[in-house]
């Protein structure tokens, strides 16, 4: 498709992001306007009790309902279904998924887009582990767990992508649609499964180094439960794909 016909739909699943939502939207608008790419932002709020939806409605008034689309849901459901729900009314031919808590920075989106065009990639994955990608706000324990888990995933799954649990990605819309239907895992493993299935279906994967600024880690430590469920999920993928 000619460049002028490309449109990028950004999916923002939110839960209790009243503070961060205006900021992430402001940054998205800034970088999309500066780069000139056509876009829309789809906010999928899962019934946040802190009034996130009300802030989203204000943003819609400020930026226009053709740029800010609201697809709220009643309660907290899974990420996979959030993507499906968000994509139903997406008018872009590309979809960008990212976190709404400012850990992912919209400044990388033009880089994702350029990378995608470079190799006509089916998906472009933001990686914290290659090039000048990295993180901010992680202590030694967190880094160790992250690298250890990633190493284990690489050995077991040989996925051809350096960052498997990352959730800052650009997909061709039809690719995301076909992958989300096939993926059954939850949490971190869901994002891993997406990449593994993408490789299975012979989709091409490009990578762009990103910086991940974790402002949440102090509050939500990575506990034993999450580690156990990660390993379970990894072993399931190992045995079934």
């Amino acid at each position, binding site marked *: 498709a000619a460049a002028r016909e490309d449109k990028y739909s950004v999916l923002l699943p939110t839960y209790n992001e009243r*503070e961060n939502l205006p900021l992430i939207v402001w940054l998205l608008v800034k970088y999309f306007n500066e780069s000139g790419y056509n876009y829309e932002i789809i906010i999928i709020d899962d019934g946040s009790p802190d009034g996130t939806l009300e802030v989203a409605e204000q943003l819609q008034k400020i930026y226009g309902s053709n740029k800010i689309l609201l697809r709220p849901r009643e309660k907290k459901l899974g990420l996979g279904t959030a993507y499906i729900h968000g994509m139903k009314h997406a008018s872009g031919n590309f979809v960008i998924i990212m976190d709404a808590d400012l850990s992912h*920075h919209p400044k990388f989106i033009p880089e994702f887009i350029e990378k995608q065009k470079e190799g006509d990639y089916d998906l472009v994955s933001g990686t914290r582990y290659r090039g000048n990608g990295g993180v901010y706000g992680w202590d030694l324990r967190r880094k160790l767990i992250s690298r250890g888990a990633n190493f284990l995933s690489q050995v077991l799954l040989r996925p051809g992508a350096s960052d498997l649990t990352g959730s800052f990605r650009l997909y061709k819309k039809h690719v995301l649609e076909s992958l989300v239907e096939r993926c059954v895992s939850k949490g971190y493993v869901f994002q891993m499964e997406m990449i593994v299935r993408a490789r299975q279906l012979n989709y091409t994967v490009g990578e762009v180094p990103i910086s991940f600024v974790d402002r949440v880690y102090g509050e939500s430590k990575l506990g034993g439960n999450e580690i156990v469920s990660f390993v379970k999920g990894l072993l399931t993928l190992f045995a079934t794909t």
Partner: protein
Amino acid sequence: MTKLLQWLLGVSLVLTAWALVSFDLLELSLPPAYREMAWPMPLYLLVSFGCYSLATVGYRVATFNDCVDAAKELQVQIKEAKADLRKKGLKM
């Protein structure tokens, strides 16, 4: 073939080759030097892999980029964003 099956296949092949040489199962009467070398191989491979894993993960943790500039830039932009949004009428 799933990754699990690929691994099982690979491991079976390696162990078969090892057993053939170590226990001379095909009665090829290989020189003792071959058998002596082959015998501890599985253990050597496991230990080597263990060391490689530790070294690799250790190196990657040590060289994990700390994005201090990114965090600073974000703080600056947050201030800018809040001011601009207030002007545009957002009630926060």
